[in-house]
Structure formats: C-alpha cells, structure tokens
C-alpha cells in the first residue's frame, strides 16, 4: 500500500499555515478566543454594573470620570474541541488511488492544524458499527501519536455510519470532521445526531475516480466490497448514463442535506494530487469556516 504520511505530506504540512477562524463556544480554557465573555486578561468591552456582578471587576477610573459604575468585560480564552470521524469501512479501500490514503492524509492534515492551534483533538475511527476513539490530543507534542494512530487505523468490514457515530459520547460543543464516502442511507440521521450533540459539522466526502467516472465495459458481475452483494450489469452507454444520473442525484442530495443543516461540504477526489488536496480542498475549508 502507498505510504500515507510520506515526506511529501510533511513538506506540504509545514507550508500549510491556515488560520481557521473557528468559533468555539465552550470547552477547556485554551488558545482560542471564545465569543463568551469571561475571565481572561484580554479586554473586550465595558458594560454598566448590574446586581450580582463581581465588584472586583468595577472600573473605578471610569466611575471617577462618569460617576457611574462600569464593569470591565474580558474575552474568555477557551480550548477548541475537535472530533475527526474517519469512516474505516471496506469501501474506503476502493480505488486505484484509494480513498483510504486520501482520507487518512486529510485526517492527518486536520490533526496538524488543530494541534498547532493548541486545541483538543479526538480521532474516531468508525468500523464494524463501533467507534474507536483515540485522544484526547493537545499540543504539537501529541502530533506524532495522532499520526501513528491514524496511519495504523485498520480498514475493512462493513459499517453502519449512524450506529457507530451514536456510540460516541460528546461532552462539549465542538467541531466534527466527518470523513466518509457517504454510501449510506443514514447520512441524514448521522448529521442530525451530530448537530443535536452541538457539533459544527464538516463533511469531507471522499470519492474515487472509479466511482466518479466508471469505465467498465461488457457484462460484469459487480460485487459490493462490504456485504458481498452482487449485481449483473451489461455496460453500455445507457448503463453508464443511468449510473451517472444516480451519482449526480446522490451528490446533489448530499450537498442539499449539508446546506439544510449548515454543514460545510467538501468533496474530494481520491486521485487528486497532494497539492490539490492541501491548497484547494483544505484552503476552501478554511475560507468557508
């Protein structure tokens, strides 16, 4: 198998300096500025004193000048909590340029960004209807472990996306990256569940070139990589057109679903180069968020 985190990956990673302005509402105190006002050294605003306010925060200088009581408001600095959900089903191994490599590289790159910002990171692999969570990681010193976990995460078997995500316990609000090929009827439920758990969701939809532009001919017995179901198809122009219609419908429905639940949607072709991956897909992510 192709080495996932090769030297090229690391080179690209170092040049990736994206500041992802993610809004965080809760979590441990950390390096990320929260919209909520709290106890911090960084001044944010003034407001008139109200009963129950900590009298230590009254700005006496202001009182001297305006003869009214004002309290200082400070920006509460909080740690962002990031979840990466990596679909590890058998179907992710598909493709000449396999979706697995692509998905793991994306997961690795996101881990780097998150850890570099001093946020907290959880890696969740979804396999055999279960979730396996690794973490929590914080700080760049944990990046190597993160990478190792991602690289060694086994792929195979079938997986019910919704069932496995439901096993995950969320303690805080946060941001969840869902990296999958989306071949499930439960994607809707999965996103709804994440939203219910107060997660901002980014759906990274990984598809292979073979899935986007199939080039089959003759009569083939198609075998499902996960459940070994089979389908006999005579390939001709009509069959290919039928498939493409299905694909377009599937992609459109997925995009509409994401729009509906304010989910950031990024589609990735597993055969795209690293450059394209880092400076197009992930940069696009940065702009959107």
């Amino acid at each position: 198998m192709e080495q996932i985190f090769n030297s090229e990956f690391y080179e690209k990673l170092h040049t990736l300096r994206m500041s992802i302005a993610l809004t965080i509402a809760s979590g441990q105190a950390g390096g990320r500025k929260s919209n909520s006002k709290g106890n911090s050294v960084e001044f944010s605003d003034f407001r008139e004193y109200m009963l129950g306010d900590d009298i230590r925060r009254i700005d006496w200088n202001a009182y001297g000048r305006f003869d009214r009581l004002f309290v200082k408001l400070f920006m509460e600095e909080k740690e962002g909590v990031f979840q990466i959900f990596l679909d590890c089903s058998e179907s992710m191994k598909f493709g000449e340029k396999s979706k697995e490599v692509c998905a793991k590289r994306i997961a690795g790159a996101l881990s780097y960004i998150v850890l570099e910002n001093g946020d907290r990171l959880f890696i969740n692999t979804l396999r055999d209807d279960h979730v396996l969570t690794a973490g929590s990681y914080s700080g760049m010193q944990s990046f190597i472990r993160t990478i190792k976990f991602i690289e060694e995460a086994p792929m195979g078997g079938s997986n019910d996306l919704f069932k496995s995500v439901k096993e995950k316990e969320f303690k805080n609000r946060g941001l969840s990256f869902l990296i999958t090929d989306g071949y499930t009827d439960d994607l809707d439920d999965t996103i709804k569940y994440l939203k219910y758990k107060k997660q901002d969701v980014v759906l990274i939809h990984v598809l292979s070139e073979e899935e986007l532009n199939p080039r089959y001919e003759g009569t083939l017995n198609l075998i499902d990589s996960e459940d070994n179901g089979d389908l006999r198809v005579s390939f001709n122009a009509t069959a290919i057109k039928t498939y493409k219609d299905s694909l377009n419908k599937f992609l459109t429905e997925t995009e509409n679903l994401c729009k509906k639940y304010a989910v950031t949607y990024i589609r990735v072709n597993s055969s795209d180069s690293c450059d394209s991956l880092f400076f197009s897909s992930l940069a696009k992510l940065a702009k959107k968020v």
Partner: protein
Amino acid sequence: MKFTHLWPLAFTLLVPVIIIMYMMKQKAKEQKVSSLYLWSEMIKNDRANTPWEKLKKNWLMILQIITLLVLIAALTSPYFLSGLVSSGKACVVIDTSASMNFMYDDNQTRLDKAKEEALSYVRKLKNGTEISLITSDKSAVLLNGKSQNKNEIIEQIKNLEASNYPGDASEGVSMAKALALDSKGLQTLVITDSSIDIENLDAMVVDVYSDMPNVAVEYVSHGFKESELDVLVKVTNFSEEAVKRDVSLYQGENLIVTKEVEIEANSSEVVYFEDVDLNGSVYFAQVSGKDACDEDNISYDVLSDGTERKVLLMTRANVYLEKALNLIPGIAVTKSEDISSIEDFAKQEFDLYIFDSLVPDKLPKQGNIIMFGCECEEITQIDDFIADGRIIHGLESNTTKYLDGLSFGVANTYSYKVPDYATPFLATNGVGEEEANVAFIGEKQGRTFAMIGFDLHNSDFPLYMEYPLLMYNLVNECVSGGIISNYVYSSGEAVAVNANIEGALPTVVKPSGEIAELTDYRYNYSDTKEYGVYSINQVVKDNEETSTFAVNYPISESKIDTHPSLISSLNENVVTEVKGIFNLRNFIIVLSLILLALEWIFSLRK
C-alpha cells in the same frame, strides 16, 4: 418477389442459436466495487428488463442476425419477375435434335442445360401465364398448348429426351410463329445450339452451344475387289487440337481390325482396311476415346445381299421412266437406246426388259418384258389405236391395288386384246359404251409380260402421285425386288419399305429388340430414332424373308458450327442463359458484405 430455392430457409433456425450464444456470451466477469449503493438504479433496470429486452440494443448481435438472414436470402436466389412475359402468353421451344446430346460442360449435356434454362424460365413466369411447350428436331411437336399448369409443363420439360434426329429449332420456331398468329403478344423462348432465324417472332434465343472437343466417324463404306472386302472409314476431328485415335472395325462384339490414326485439328482422315474378313453382313467402325458425343464415334455399315435384279431399259429418252425406276429398290437399271443390239444385251440375261416405244425385231427368250406405247405381235394384237385424247382409269388388279380412283389423260394410245393369261389394269372408254383395255399384265411360262398402250410423253400420268406407285407395282410384279433399297440410314431418315404384297405384313425389329408391325406393304418407316441394326422380316408363302439395315448418328449434327451467339453476337435477344429476370442474389451478397463491414466497424468501436 419469388425464390428459386426454399431449402436455405431452414438456416433461419440459426437465428435463435445466435441469440442463445449471445445470451451465453453474457457470462459476466466479477468486478469489485466499493458499494452497490449507486448501482441500485441499475438493479431497477435490471429487474425491469426481460432477457430479450437486454438484447434489444445489442447492435452487434442484431447486425449478425441481419447478416445471417441476408445470406440466407442470397442462397434462396430471390428474383423479381420483370416484364419479360408481360402478355401472359409464353412459348418455350426446345431443340431436341441429336446434337443436343453433346456435352455442354463436363457434367451436363446441352439438353440438360436447355432443360435447366427452360425450367428456370418457366418457374419464373407469373402464375396464370399461358405456356406452350414445343420440341423441335426434324419436325416440331407441340407437347403442351396454352397450359396454365406450370407444374405440368415443368414435369414435361424434366422428362424431355433428345430425339437422335437431325434438325434444329427452326421447325419449332415455325410452329411458334403459327401459334403467335393465334395468340397476340406471345413471347417465345428458343433454346438451341444451332443458328436460328427468329425474324417476325417476339423471341429470345438461349444458345446452349459449347465448343467441346469431338471426333466422329463420318461415314463407313465398302467395296469388293475380286471378292475381297475393302472398308473405308472417314474420321473427322472437330476439335481445335490434333488428336491420335484408334479406329477399329467390329462385328458384333468381335474386334476385327484396328488402326491408329492422327488427325489434325478441324480436319478429316480416311482410314482404309483392306481384305477384311467378315462373317456376316453387318459391321461397324468405332473411333476410340471419350469426347463431347459418344454416339457419333460409331458408324454401322451393311453389306448388300447381292440380290439386285438387273433391268434393261430401252428408251430414247424418258426421264419419267428413269426416275420411277430409280426409286424402286433392289434393281440395277441399265439403259440403252440401241435396239439393234438387244441380242447382245439379252446374252447378259436381264431379269426385266423395258421397251419404251422401241420394239426389237425379236423378243429376248428369257426375262420378263414391259412395253410402253408399242405394237408387238409376239405378245398380243392391237385392238385399236385411239388417236383422240382420252381419260384412262384403273381397273381392279394387283397392279392397281391401293390406287383407287386412278384417272389420267392421254393424247393417244393403243388398246390391246388382252391375252388369256393376262389381266387388264388400265382401260378407257372405247367406241360406244365398250371399254378398251390399254394395259395388261400376265404370266406365261414363267415369264411376265406387261404392255401399256401409250407413251408416257403423251400422257399426264407422270404428274400424278399414283405414277411411281403403279410403276413400282408393275416392276415388282415382273421382278421380285428386295424389301428395302438402301441399307444404311441416318437417324430420322425414313426407310422406304416395299414388301411383297403376296406375303404377310412386314415387321421391323429395332436394335433394342422392340418389334413394330408395319400397317402396309409400302411404308415409309420413319421411327429410326435408335442407332444400330434393324431388321425387316416378312413371311411370303411360308418363307421368311429378312432384310437388314443400319441407322447411324446423323453426322450433320456433329458439324454444327453456326450457333446463335456466333451468328448474332450483337443481337441482344441471343443469350447464353435466361435473362430478363431480375435476380437479387448478387445485390444481396453485396449487401451482406456491407453488413459485415459495418459489423467490423462496430466491433472495433466497441
């Protein structure tokens, strides 16, 4: 559109085979895909489609099926009926002369080819067409007139055989012309190997002549040289190349002698056999080797039986008599004007003396005598000399047997007193109502005497058809001649049989052994279709008399060199096979080639 053959339609059974093979061919390879999630639509289609619907857009298979059907169609040789016989009246004239037995190619004779073309033509005629079928050789035979039953005509054509007779299609064409007078718009197909004139006839000629190598025995002749038999055989090579052949003489199955001869192209060689030792009177010459026609490789000859009767004709000039005598078989006529030398002639002991207006001083002491326009006291006395023109009529006698109503005119004639031993056979009205006998015949002391009172020059008798018959009877009563006059004939020639009226009706035994009884004593026997040796038998007074004759291949048929295409090469009505029928086979073959090319392109693109 019609089809020449229907059997190729059986190949349509291959169509389901192709479809089954395509269905079998659809055995799928396994292909792993990430998920069948997106192929669910295909499942719906897959369920909706029957196996047949799955195949419906398989262009390669459809092209192959079309190609198969087109090839089957080509095998059936479909054709459109053109306006060839637009009038609905057709006539087929087939030459069945002996030359049609020549080989057309290595496998079939010209007649086979002619039948093939005729069948092809008839089959392609519209149903309901009035078809007449005529065969033609030395004469034409209307086998079927205006028949609308094609199957009947087809059967008749299939059963046709060459007649062995010489001839061509001209008699048939004449008959077709006669039919055309009655049937307006009659369109005729003439199938022949000889040139033919179809002027004033709406006709198409199919030329079945083919130039195959052939060597023939043209004739065999014999002569006696001091009782030794010498035989002469003329062999002709009708080929374009010189050949070396054996020429043999056979008697029955016994080979008598053989000589090798080399014959240049298109030339003849005469082969002599000297001092041939024969036991019987019939033999044949045969040239070896197989060629276009085997029948003309054999030629029979019959040695005469030597019973020729000698006749002395004393006359100044009488063509009528000479001609009549020449027709009588079995007699050798010697003619002389010199009546004074009758005594010298008499020493040769002629069987019959005929005096035509010449009377010797003394009659010969032996032999039979016939006198024309003479006065001869030695035989009888004159009753009268009738100088004014009279009508002569026949009286009932052996001499006038079968000559009922005989009547002719004479300018002048003697009338005789009929001797006791004689019978009158011609008379005229004399003075008053009494009949005057102008001719009689009778036997006296073993000799037959006949007197006819008028000179033939003073009579119109020779202009009547009864004249040669009466002459024959007259001479025959005086000398007993052979039954036949010639011994060698060509097929189709009539054999003049002159049997003794004293005996039973003669019978003819054909080479095949078949026996035919003749219906008269004088008979033109024309059923000489078979080649070989015939015999004529007649029982006369408890004695069976037999004459033998041979019938040979009509050599004129071997010499055909003016076939229709040669004479009328620019005439569009002369063809070598039936045309005018739009045969689709070639077009269909071209179409199938185009389909194959399309299939190839399709398969390449796929």
